[in-house]
Structures are given as structure tokens and as C-alpha cells.
């Protein structure tokens, strides 16, 4: 797949909850090219996170078309394999496993690959070096600062060489200075690893760091603006 091809293709995607009473996505259309960095913004309840969950195959749509990395998510049964190979998640609360060391947390997604223990360790170490945490690989997440934890989460998201990083409010639990460091790191790794970055945020200054800004309202794309 070259950088002119669409890595995400969404057409008229709909998702409702509570027996159709809550329409989280109401016919959304979106295409994202490989290697793009896009921000999705909108008020609470607009459908940002639902859209991200659909792209990451954490949830299934009611109707519409959604193809990610060439895979039709409405048809495939191998959603776990898709998530393992194509998607890297970065959550607001980092969600690291507290009893595992930093490096063990980064290795976690690799259990579904054919990598052996030493290959897992090597790849995890490589990524922890790239997020400047090589000196803290044996520490437990509880001993790390918020920014450091989010860097571990970023390394974990990249460990299986995904096509797409889905970041849900990645700076939401950080102070502005640390948040900026994390955003710069995400941008740098997105370029370095040639990975598509889709970030959900409600903070305008964070959203404006992307190459493209999409706003969502009432389960539909309201604006789609190229920033740079």
C-alpha cells in the first residue's frame, strides 16, 4: 500500500445504542490516506470515540461500509488478528498493567504474533529506546510519571508495526507541557514509522497539530479541513 491509497474508507456508517434510541454514528463518511495524521474533534457525545472504536474493530457498526487497511470490517471474522496486526491503540489513561514491568507491558501485544521471547524483548527494547525509556525498562508503571506512562503506551501501540495508530485523548490526563512532549513524540514516530495517526481530542490546540482536522457532530462529519 503506497501513501496515496486510502487506509481507511468509511461510507454512511451507522451505529446506535439502547435499541436505536441513541444514534452514536448517523451516516458518517470518512477517508484517510496512508501515513496521514488526522485529528477528530467534537463535543462530548458527538461520536468521536465510537468512530475510533469502529476503526479499531473494538465495536461493530449497524450498517454502512468500513474498510481499514484493505479489510472489510463488516465482513471479516478475524477481528482479533486485524487489531493485532494493523492497529495500535493509545488511550487517555494509558491502561498499563501494574504488576508488569515497563518492557513486559510493551511486549504484551506480541503474544499474538509468532515472535519468541528474545525477539519480543528486542523489539520492545528498540521502541523503549525511541521513547527514551531504555533506563526504566524494569520499573513498574506505578513508579513512572504520567508522561512516562504514556510513552510506554505509545511504544506498546507501535510494537507490532501497525498500519494505524488510534489515539483517544492521548494528552487528556497530562499537564500541557507533558502533553506537548507526547504529541511531538507521536508525530515524530508517525513520520519515522510511516504509520497513519488518527487522534481524537476535544482540545483545539492538540487538534491543530495534525495535518488534517475533522469535526464530528451528532454522529456525522461536520467539517474536514486540511491544516498543512
Amino acid at each position, binding site marked *: 500500500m503506497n501513501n496515496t491509497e486510502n487506509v481507511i474508507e468509511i461510507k454512511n456508517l451507522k451505529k446506535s445504542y439502547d435499541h436505536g434510541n441513541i444514534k452514536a454514528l448517523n451516516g458518517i463518511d470518512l477517508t484517510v490516506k496512508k501515513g496521514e495524521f488526522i485529528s477528530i474533534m467534537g463535543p462530548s457525545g458527538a461520536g468521536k470515540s465510537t468512530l475510533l472504536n469502529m476503526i479499531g474493530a*473494538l465495536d461493530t457498526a449497524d450498517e454502512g461500509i468500513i474498510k481499514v487497511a484493505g479489510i472489510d470490517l463488516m465482513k471479516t471474522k478475524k477481528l*482479533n488478528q486485524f487489531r493485532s496486526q494493523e492497529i495500535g491503540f493509545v*488511550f487517555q489513561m494509558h491502561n498499563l498493567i501494574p504488576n*508488569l514491568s515497563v518492557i513486559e507491558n510493551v*511486549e*504484551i501485544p506480541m503474544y499474538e504474533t509468532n515472535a519468541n*521471547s528474545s525477539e519480543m524483548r528486542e523489539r520492545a527494547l528498540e521502541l523503549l529506546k525511541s521513547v527514551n525509556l531504555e533506563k526504566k525498562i524494569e520499573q513498574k508503571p506505578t513508579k513512572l510519571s504520567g508522561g512516562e506512562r504514556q510513552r510506554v503506551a505509545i511504544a506498546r501501540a507501535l510494537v507490532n508495526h501497525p498500519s494505524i495508530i488510534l489515539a483517544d485523548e492521548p494528552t487528556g490526563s497530562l499537564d500541557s507541557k507533558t502533553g506537548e512532549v507526547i504529541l511531538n513524540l507521536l508525530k515524530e514516530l508517525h513520520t519515522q514509522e510511516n504509520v497513519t495517526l488518527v487522534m481524537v481530542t476535544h482540545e483545539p490546540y492538540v487538534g491543530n497539530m495534525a495535518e488534517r482536522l475533522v469535526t464530528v457532530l451528532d454522529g456525522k462529519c461536520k467539517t474536514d479541513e486540511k491544516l498543512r
Partner: protein
Amino acid sequence: MSFLSLVVKNPFRNKTRSALAIVGIAIGIMVIVALGMVTGGLKSSTQSTLKAGAAEITALQTGSNSFGSGGTLNESLVNDLLSTNGVKDTAGILRATNTSSSASSLGSNSSQSSFGPGGSISITGIDSGKLSLVGIDNVNGSAFNNGSTDEIIIGKTFAQDQNLTVGNTINLYGKDFKITGTFETGSFITDAGIYMPLSTLQNLTSNDNKISAILVKVTDNANVTTVSQNIESSYPNQLTTTTAEATAGRINQGLGFIDTASWAISLLAIFIGAVGVINTMIMSVYERTREIGVLKAVGWTDKRILGMILGESIVLTLIAFVVGTIIAVVGVEILLTYSPSVSGIIKPSFALDIFARAFLVAFLVGVIGGLYPAYRASRLSPTEALRYE
């Protein structure tokens, strides 16, 4: 880190909760192993009483329902019984107990003031040529001479308990006896006793020409029950008989009850243990709901999540198996070390099937207890799990 290491590591996140779950299961395992060791030991001892060469029938004074002390039968009956159809050999034995004595090693002044269960020891008088009828086939050293008045042989259990060996002397009825040999039959009763010439014990206990019982060995083709009935019908109101098989059967029946109780305890342990494990694992799954959501988000399959939780449950119960087994073995050994009255009767069994049964119970508890929480975890919706607070 391998997946297996992760599974082994996870149960110890909440050390207190895991330790309590382990203790609960370990108690059940301990009971299973300890009971198994004790009943297994008693069973093998019972089997030893049926060994080839030993007498199949014991004839006692009618009305006597136990293998009591003292002379109640006339010794002449020993030869009389030889004429009964199907009888190959007979031996008269006199049984007595000695409650206070001392033992001293030759060439030393060391002494011990008491021995045996309750400080008493069972002494049997028998012709040395008839020792095989009580199951004594080999004597380490030599058997006593029938004409001697100061020679005895002692059982292995008694020798060990009293720290005695061949060549030592022991005081019985105020008289020193030299130990000419030791023996081991496998029967906890026989091995805890002393044997001496019949005539010597008759003299010491004022039972001249009197015996307690007659041991009867039947011919190769004879039916033990028929011979037994023949003896009783030939000596009505005088002799009553009991066969070794019937005695062993009665003991085995008693042990069977203990065995059934042991299985009942095993089932109870499985039930109680499984409830404990379900509780522990459900709590663990609840606490880790968000984490399970993350694992699903990074591509873990439902099968792997199920395997992880089930594996953690099995790890808990296998640790409980090790802990329970160690406590049971050490506990039984301590009991036997500090309670000579019990150690004279019980020789614990270390048969593999006892530990295999306990392992099976532990494994089943792990599987049964972990299955529901593991299934629940594997079926969690990733989005709902990630939203869980």
C-alpha cells in the same frame, strides 16, 4: 516474558487474597494426603498379615473374643489339632504384656525406663521352629534357642523405638534377656513385639502348660473355612476359630470406611475449594476488567484470555497442592515422632496414588473454579471493558 511466566506471575498481584485462597485449598489437600498416608499404611500392614507361610487360622478359647493375654488353653491341644483333617502344622503361643522394665546396651550403663504403647510391650512365647507361623520368616541375627531362659528376638518397630539392636540386653519380669535377633514382618502389631521361647514365658508368667492361642497352618489343597469349621465342630465349647483372611477383611472394611470418608472429604474439598477459587478469580476479573479490554484491543483472542484466567486459577490450586502436601507429610511425621503410642501402630504410606489423588483434586478445583471467571473474562466486550471504572 513468556505467556506461561505471565500466567504464573498474575495471581500474586493481590498477595493476601491469593494467599487466603491457597490456604483454603491447602487445608483440603492436607486432609486428603494425611488420611491417605495413614490409611495406606494400615492397609499395607493388613496385607502383610496375609503373607504366605503364616498360619491361616487362629484357635482361641471359646468365649474369648480377643487375642488376649494369659494362658486359657491347655497346651496338649496343639498336638491334638494336628489330627484334624486339613491341618498341616500347629503352634501354641502364649501372649503376655510387660509394663515396666528397662533396657541397657551391653558394655554401657545407658537405660530406658519404659516402652511400647502406653509403656507396655506385647511378649509372645512360641517354639522357635514355628516362627514362620506368625509371619517371621527371616531373623536378622539368630532366633532364640528353645531351651534358653534368657534369649529373645524383637520386632523392627520396637527395636527402632527403643534404639535396641542384636547383642543388647533388655530387662523383662526383673530378669535380663539377650537380644539374639530382630525381625520385620510388615505387620505393625507383630513388629512392635518381643518373642521368646514358649516354656520361658510360661515359667515367667506362671502359666505352665498353658497357652493363649493355637496357630493353625492348613495343607495346600485344604479350604481354610472348612478346616476352621472342622476344628470348631471337633472341639465344641472349647475352641473358637478366626481366620487371618476374616481378620484382614474386618480391618479392611474399617479402612474402607476411612477410605470412603477420605473421598467424601476430597469431594467436599473440591466444592469448598472451587467456591473459594471462583470467588478469588471473579474478584480478580472484576478488578482487571479494563485491563482485559486493553488485551482485547491489542489483539488478544478470547481463547488466550480464557487460557490466562484459567491458568492463573490452576496455578493457585497447584501451589495449594504443594503447600498442603508438605504440611500433611511434615504433620504426620511430627505426630509419629512425638507420639510413640501412635507410631507403634501407624507406618505412613508414601504411595504415589495418594499424591496423585491430591494433585487431581487440586487440578480439578483449579479448572472448575477458574472456568466461569475465565469464560466471563473472555466474553467481555472490549468497548465496555475499556469504559469500566
